[in-house]
């Protein structure tokens, strides 16, 4: 058990909801609209469900032959002139990146969006060693200026209104705090970022897919920022999780059709760039990162989470995420995929996350690579209960309820003691009479005068001894 404080998503989500009448409704509406675009895009492809199945199978195959494909990727990428590095964990990843930058005398770095670099906490590591790190993705840059991690893996600052952004830019860049026109704000950021691209000694990207047969990796963005970052500075470093492998170029015909449609309800990202070896006169380093992935691959109930292509559809469809905001999860990954990924990094710290779900199952049905997300959330709850991480009130109450539910006569006593006349339905749900959060926003159900059982005994007396 780690000494870190538990993330408390329920309490943080409550703050998001109570903050005002603007943020949570906007967040919910925007992501719901994204889902509707996704549904329309998916519906326009007759073979959508086959594509999901195919994508799932390709990922399963790759993950169960990962050693083979990683070595094939390494050999082909090396042949094309890329330098391959292997990082067992976040610390090694960061050290490798730092040593490459140091050996090239790089003092300023421009990077595009990468959840893996976020997972490794790379930016603070480099900044503590005197290297300036600038995010070039608009949403990520907004979050960086605000000192916050991304709240969504595709839309990093989606929990902010444009008014929030106007005020942030006013504080950090000196613009008019009252001008919240999106075109203006985007232009401000563009002009602010441009000189940084020219000044940077290196560009960093992540990688959406790594293709074994060619040693190519793909980066999908809408702003083209990754492409400038990879093309202008002489040095390009890409961080890629080992689960990003696919065997063949033609597999991209499956994944690219699913990715942007699932992520944002668009047919394709604006830029789907292939990087095969360094560009002429440039240098390309690829850091292949494990950071717990091999261990996860060995977990029978949870290894399917490695199929994830980071589209964020599970977040958009999740009714709990839409009302919570991503920062409420207190972790690198939020939403349903975060609930099943984060505990693999720290079971105790993220032990409440699997309970921040209604188990509605929408995430499983929307997932383009058919990860059984909802079932994994359910299974993580079992893990947390077995480890003794369930909150004490719940543990004691369930132990008592468990006894009563196993013994009809005790159950009858409980029924009579609580009694429908007391209208104790809400307490009945928690099995704890000292707390009653039900009543904060809900009226109590009207009690029944007579239970069904009593009615049955009175009206079906011939069945009385069933």
């Amino acid at each position, binding site marked *: 058990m780690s000494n870190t404080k538990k993330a408390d998503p329920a309490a943080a989500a409550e703050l998001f909801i109570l903050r005002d009448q603007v943020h949570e409704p906007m967040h919910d509406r925007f992501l719901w609209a994204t889902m509707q675009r996704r549904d329309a895009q998916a519906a326009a492809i007759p073979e959508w469900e086959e594509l999901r199945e195919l994508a799932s199978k390709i990922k399963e195959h790759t993950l169960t032959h990962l050693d083979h494909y990683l070595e094939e990727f390494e050999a082909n990428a090396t042949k094309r002139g890329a330098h391959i590095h292997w990082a067992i964990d976040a610390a090694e990843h960061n050290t490798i990146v730092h040593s490459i930058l140091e050996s090239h005398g790089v003092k300023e770095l421009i990077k595009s969006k990468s959840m893996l670099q976020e997972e490794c906490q790379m930016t603070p590591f480099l900044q503590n060693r005197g290297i300036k790190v600038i995010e070039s993705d608009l949403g990520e840059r907004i979050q960086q200026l605000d000192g916050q991690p991304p709240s969504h893996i595709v839309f990093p600052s989606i929990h902010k209104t444009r008014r929030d952004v106007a005020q942030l830019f006013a504080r950090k860049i000196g613009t008019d705090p009252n001008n919240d026109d999106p075109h203006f704000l985007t232009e401000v950021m563009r002009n602010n970022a441009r000189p940084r691209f020219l000044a940077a000694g290196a560009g960093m990207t992540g990688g959406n897919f790594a293709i074994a047969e060619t040693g190519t990796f793909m980066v999908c963005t809408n702003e083209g920022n990754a492409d400038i970052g990879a093309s202008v500075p002489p040095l390009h470093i890409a961080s890629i999780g080992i689960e990003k492998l696919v065997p063949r170029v033609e597999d991209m015909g499956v994944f690219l059709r699913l990715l942007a449609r699932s992520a944002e309800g668009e047919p394709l990202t604006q830029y789907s760039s292939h990087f095969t070896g360094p560009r002429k006169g440039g240098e390309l380093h690829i850091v292949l990162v494990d950071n717990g992935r091999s261990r996860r691959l060995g977990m029978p109930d949870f290894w399917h989470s490695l199929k994830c292509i980071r589209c964020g559809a599970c977040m958009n469809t999740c009714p709990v995420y839409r009302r919570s905001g991503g920062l409420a999860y207190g972790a690198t990954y939020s939403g349903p995929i975060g609930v099943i990924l984060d505990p693999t990094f720290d079971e105790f710290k993220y032990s409440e996350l699997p309970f921040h779900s209604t188990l509605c199952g*929408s995430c499983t*049905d929307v997932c383009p690579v058919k990860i059984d997300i909802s079932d994994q959330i*359910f299974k993580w*709850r079992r893990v947390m209960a077995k480890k003794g991480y369930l909150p004490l009130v*719940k543990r004691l109450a369930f132990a008592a309820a468990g006894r009563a539910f196993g013994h009809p006569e005790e159950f009858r006593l409980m029924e009579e003691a609580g009694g429908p006349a007391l209208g104790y339905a809400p307490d009945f749900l*928690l099995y704890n009479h000292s707390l009653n959060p039900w009543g904060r926003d*809900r009226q109590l159900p009207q009690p029944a005068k007579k239970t*069904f059982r009593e009615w049955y005994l009175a009206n079906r007396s011939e069945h009385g001894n069933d």
Partner: protein
Amino acid sequence: MIFPVSATNGSATQKGLRVGLFIPCYIDMIFPEVGIATLQLLERFGLDVHFPLGQTCCGQPMSNSGDESNAAAAEHLFVENFAPFDYVVGPAGSCVKQVRCHFDAIEQTDDVRHVRQETYELVEFLHDILQVDSFPWAEFQHSVALHNSCSSIRGLGIAKPSEIMGAPFDKSAALLSKVRGLVLVPVDRPDDCCGFGGTFCVTDEAVSARMGLDKVHDHLRHGAEYVVSPDMSCLMHQQGIARRAGLDLKYVHVAQVLNGGPF
């Protein structure tokens, strides 16, 4: 009390089958009229329906909280009570899903497998097993918003989830459309979770209440007078939200509508 057996309905081969009536604990205590409606409705089709008096709860609250050891006793007792029946029918999607999909805390004996396989939620039992084609005794002159629970949609498959592509279907709507006078109103987010979620509704109160309020407004916006669902637990939550907010919506179980009461 005697209820007429309709000869015009359902599959003749099903008559006389022994059906165990599974009345979830919260229905027994808070919504007995739903249990009565379910029993009377099943009796109309000539089935031999029994309510085993030893039943308690399916163990879902413990199981959903990851607590397998405390769920096991409830699961054992459930199987003991219902193993003797040809079918087990319950008017609650999430409880039926618990039995069918999550009775994993106990050894999988023949009895356990039989009970898991033959336990049906009321709508799917009427639609798939009895294949009911009319409810001549029922009339409901109201505009109705249908709320299929997440467990019913994504766990039991009583309607097509919006995320999955393919031909739409909805077994609850198909049954309700056979009720004289009833008008189903379309809503904006038919299968977005209402936020009940069992213990979630108290452990994650703020999010749960917000989801519930959004759901209530969706129903109101489209002119529904009644919200009808195969899951009373979702309705208990939504009703509590609507009452607190002073919003005028009525909540009844699909069994009450299909049986023509009691309300």
